[in-house]
């Protein structure tokens, strides 16, 4: 056992050495077209990455998820192509996607903005969608200024090799009810895509942003999203990871929610061989609210890990986390939900639930709710359940004449649909698309 542990850490360290060489090569001859204003941030980020190193086997946060393969694939891809690669097949992948209600579609391929594939809105002062590659130096510095640069090692990796990104800014009092659809494609060429999305929702403004990942082949994605919700704002954020079954996908979202604002997030993982998602929410103003929903479906030998962390920093803040997992074959799932109620966050209400369906004997889930509470006046509840399909429901359906396989699909679909339904009123088109994607997977998953 000891041997293996050493091996994995050694391999991760070797990958980092390769990545360092790639980074130095890149600094020596910067790629054309990447914004110069990113340079200082990239250097700082790389220093952080080198100091921290990839997660080690003993790292508690990575206890159940082995990132060594991800580090090695990153090294292999970055060694040859330090920055993004032009695509060949993006249009094929795009063909299947819905056009959502307000038509806005911003497309990135292998990390680079693609105006030719995007459908943008008219320039609008109240809703700015700024690809980093089009931002001048002062705009760029402003965009970076609002983002945490070295929050963790994966964010540092993203920043160190950042080529492009999208800044979404919704002006004060502006209500954008319909979805801003941001699509990140990794087309499976040897490219370590580092998608970046920053969202700023102004005071008393509303927005709906969809961060949608699709890919082909052995793609590699390390996505970072930073979100600021100003006072009295409302944001519905949908993250949909529907990459190929050979993809490796790591994503971080860092969210700040100010006083009297509401952050709703729906996080869905259908694809990937290895997916790890970290959602960190800071309720930093009084009466700030977060509702975090999640759904993942996985089978074969695939692995999905969701880590949530909600910090209640202010009084009368509320958070609700509802995550559901569906696993078949030898798939492995991880749910780690941490709620920290800090001193002074009186009147906090925090609820967490994680329900999982294990559809085979060999599927496995590690679920761990964690509460850290530093104040008295709070209401907290958490629960986790893991089980098979309800036998009574199965018999009821079959007694009506539904064949066993269909009955299983009906029940699994119903279980998943409850999460998808949280999107329906905001974007029926997206909810329908998700339902279809979910149904497509059902025969394999059940």
């Amino acid at each position, binding site marked *: 056992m000891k041997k293996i542990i050493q091996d994995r850490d050694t391999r991760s360290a070797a990958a980092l050495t390769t990545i360092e060489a790639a980074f130095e090569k890149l600094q020596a001859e910067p790629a054309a077209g990447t914004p110069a204003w990113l340079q200082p941030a990239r250097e700082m980020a790389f220093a952080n990455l080198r100091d921290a190193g990839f997660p080690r086997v003993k790292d508690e946060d990575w206890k159940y998820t082995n990132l060594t393969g991800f580090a090695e694939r990153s090294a292999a891809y970055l060694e040859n192509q330090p920055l993004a690669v032009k695509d060949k097949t993006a249009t094929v992948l795009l063909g299947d996607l819905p056009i959502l209600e307000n038509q806005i579609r911003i497309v990135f391929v292998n990390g680079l903005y693609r105006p030719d594939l995007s459908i943008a809105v008219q320039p609008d002062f109240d809703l700015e969608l700024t690809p980093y590659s089009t931002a001048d130096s002062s705009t760029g510095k402003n965009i970076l200024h609002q983002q945490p640069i070295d929050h963790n090692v994966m964010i540092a990796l993203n920043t160190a090799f950042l080529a492009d990104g999208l800044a979404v800014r919704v002006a004060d009092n502006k209500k954008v009810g319909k979805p801003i659809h941001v699509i990140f494609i990794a087309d499976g060429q040897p490219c370590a895509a580092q998608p970046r999305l920053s969202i700023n929702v102004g005071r008393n403004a509303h927005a709906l942003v969809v961060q949608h990942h699709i890919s082909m082949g052995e793609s590699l994605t390390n996505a970072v999203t930073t979100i600021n919700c100003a006072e009295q704002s409302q944001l519905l954020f949908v993250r949909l990871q529907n990459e190929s079954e050979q993809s490796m996908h790591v994503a971080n979202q860092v969210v700040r929610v100010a006083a009297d604002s509401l952050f709703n997030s729906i996080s869905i993982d259908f694809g990937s061989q290895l997916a790890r998602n970290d959602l960190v929410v800071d309720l930093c103003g009084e009466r700030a609210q977060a509702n975090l929903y999640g759904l993942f479906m996985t089978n074969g030998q695939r692995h999905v890990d969701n880590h949530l962390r909600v910090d209640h920093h202010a009084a009368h803040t509320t958070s609700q986390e509802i995550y559901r997992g569906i696993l078949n074959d030898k798939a492995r799932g991880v749910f780690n939900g941490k709620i920290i109620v800090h001193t002074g966050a009186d009147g906090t209400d925090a609820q967490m639930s994680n329900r999982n369906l294990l559809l085979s004997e060999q599927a496995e889930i590690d679920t761990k709710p964690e509460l850290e509470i530093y104040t008295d006046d709070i209401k907290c509840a958490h629960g986790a359940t893991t089980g098979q399909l309800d036998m*009574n429901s199965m018999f009821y359906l079959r007694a009506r004449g539904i064949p066993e396989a269909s009955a299983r699909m009906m029940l699994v679909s119903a279980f998943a649909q409850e999460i998808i339904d949280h999107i329906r009123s905001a974007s029926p088109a997206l909810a329908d698309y998700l339902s279809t994607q979910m149904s497509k997977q059902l025969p394999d998953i059940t």
Partner: protein
Amino acid sequence: MLNIDNLHANAGDTEILKGLNLSIGTGEVHAIMGPNGSGKSTLAHVLAGRDGYEVTGGTVTFLGTELLDMLPEERAWHGIFLGFQYPIEIPGVNNTYLLKAALNARQKFRGEPEIDAAQFLRVIKDKARLMQMEQSFLNRSVNEGFSGGEKKRNEIFQMAVLEPRLAILDETDSGLDIDALKIVAAGINALRSEDRSFLIVTHYQRLLDYIEPDFVHVLAGGRIIKSGDKSLALELEAKGYDWVLDETATPG
């Protein structure tokens, strides 16, 4: 239509049905009464094919074929319907969708094309009206948030749509108020026909005031210990079960 011959069945390690005989002819209505725990629901479940029971002896033929070899869904396709004593809630599975899928599965089994969508909608609207169910119930999840009485009404509604050959109704009358009882009874009576039979499990004679049975049986200790016509139900109502148990007790 249905012939149960010397049926023995276990639930867990306990023998519940201990040599049960019952024969139901086409178009007949049979009522089964009996003390709590005597095995009535067990019989219903075994006939419908629920897991968790082990048949240790005896045979059941339904319309000439061996019933016990079939999967629950196959039994349904052959015309068995079970109205549950405790209908469960299935969140996220739409009532109408369930019925359509059930009918189409049966069509497929029969080698017939899928049902016509428009005609199906007409049928379920008619049957919902018959059961005095609001249309909104059709679009809700199966039994989710239904009151106890509404769940029972939904069972009969489903039966009306599926038009089985043999309906096994397990205490469909329990928990119904007088008005709902009349509606349920009317729903059942509307389905009575020459080629459809009923096996009605009940504790109360009052249901039989509305649905006149051809035969009444007493199930106790895992067997049918007495059979008669509808007057037996009246007698049971007046005198309880003890006299039947005494009368049939085997000496020693």
